[in-house]
């Protein structure tokens, strides 16, 4: 122990106990109004936006170079068409089941009872401790506040964790502290979709419920954060969990290649508006 100064060890021990007191993963306990945090977000917004723009341009130029004969543009168009067709197929299945609960997701402005703001992903968490966080280029100046749901045309992405002036942090649904109240689309079996890092798991589904691999999972709207009827993902596996059923859920949105998202300007207090 003589290797380090005793005073240093003592200070580090004190810091450790301070850190224990400060540390809390409970979102409700967090002081999201901390102006210094918002300042850091604003301070890093411009360089992040710059790097993001330059990277996009470099990547775009490289793709255009290697994708001769405009294959890239064709590919992009086909992807958009494919997404539209997937959405259409899903909606047709919904009509066939004579249910009107699941709304069209392709254009949130038409289906959402709330105004939406589109945003670009400009960064992500710099730490492996909580890697399921991305940074978007819209913040308080655009009317964004903490808790607002974030989605893409493919489904739920997450919710606003911290809103700076120009940018915001989005907690993805795959983060372990994320929880979304959800239904199995086909049978209306209810449960909670939680993040597990690489994907999600739907917990607390009643034992008697009818759940199958391939079932679509949609938000129930009862958690006060996410609007009702937005697709979350697809059931990939089912296992008993005590007196409940637990189902692995693969998110419908490819969260690893997020580029554009929409932020639904739904106040967290509007819990019953869409019920």
């Amino acid at each position: 122990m003589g290797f380090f100064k005793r005073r240093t060890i003592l200070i580090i021990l004190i810091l450790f106990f301070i850190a224990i007191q400060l540390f809390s993963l409970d979102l409700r306990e967090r002081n999201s109004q901390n102006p210094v945090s918002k300042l850091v977000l604003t301070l890093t917004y411009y360089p992040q936006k710059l790097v993001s723009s330059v990277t996009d341009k470099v990547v775009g130029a490289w793709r255009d170079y290697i994708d001769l004969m405009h294959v890239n543009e064709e590919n992009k168009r086909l992807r958009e068409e494919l997404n539209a067709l997937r959405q259409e197929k899903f909606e047709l299945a919904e009509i066939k089941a004579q249910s009107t609960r699941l709304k069209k997701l392709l254009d949130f402005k038409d289906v959402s009872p709330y105004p939406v703001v589109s945003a670009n992903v400009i960064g992500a968490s710099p730490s492996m401790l909580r890697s399921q966080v991305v940074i978007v280029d819209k913040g308080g100046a655009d009317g964004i506040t903490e808790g607002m749901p974030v989605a893409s045309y493919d489904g739920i992405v997450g919710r606003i964790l911290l809103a700076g002036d120009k940018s915001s942090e989005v907690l993805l649904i795959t983060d372990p502290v994320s929880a979304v109240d959800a239904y199995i689309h086909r049978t209306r079996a209810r449960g909670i979709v939680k993040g597990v890092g690489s994907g999600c798991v739907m917990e607390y589904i009643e034992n008697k419920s009818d759940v199958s691999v391939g079932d679509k999972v949609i938000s129930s709207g009862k958690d006060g954060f996410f609007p009702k009827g937005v697709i979350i993902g697809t059931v990939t596996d089912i296992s008993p969990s005590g007196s409940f059923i637990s189902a692995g859920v693969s998110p419908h949105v490819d969260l690893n290649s997020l580029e554009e998202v929409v932020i639904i300007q739904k106040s967290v207090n509007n819990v019953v508006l869409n019920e």
Partner: protein
Amino acid sequence: MNKTVTFVSLLLVSVLIITVQSTLLSPRIAGYLFPDLNLIFIVFLAVYSETKGSFLLAAGNGYMMDVLSGNLPGTFTISRLSAYMLVRTSSNHVYLKKALVLGLVIFLTTIFTWTFILTIIRIKSDAGFQLSFSDIILQGLVNSVVGVPLFWAAGRIHARFQK
């Protein structure tokens, strides 16, 4: 060089590093084999910087990590500050010009900071962070491999400015 200029320069480097780490080298983009430039920079501050404000810079770097990593209050600020103090105290005792020793210091600092954080998580939280000890060892190795040449380059630049 003027101390204020040095401090401002190091502050700008801090912002540049956190920008790179939250865009090009984020674990979401680069996977778990990303170098933690922020931590390497804190070791650099502890070893080379004679600016009194380097203590504040180390805390500031940790705070930026806190904010951008999902607003985890104090976790990185305090763990990185502790790492800074530990390396600062011990840097008189180790021969840091040797690449192997330097690599070992970076590796051990990585292990120290993550052990610090994981201990707090275990004590305070039941949230399941998917972070294993092998992930930490792996990051320690990546940090050492990337950190040693970065240190060499940064040390030369730093020495030039000191003249």
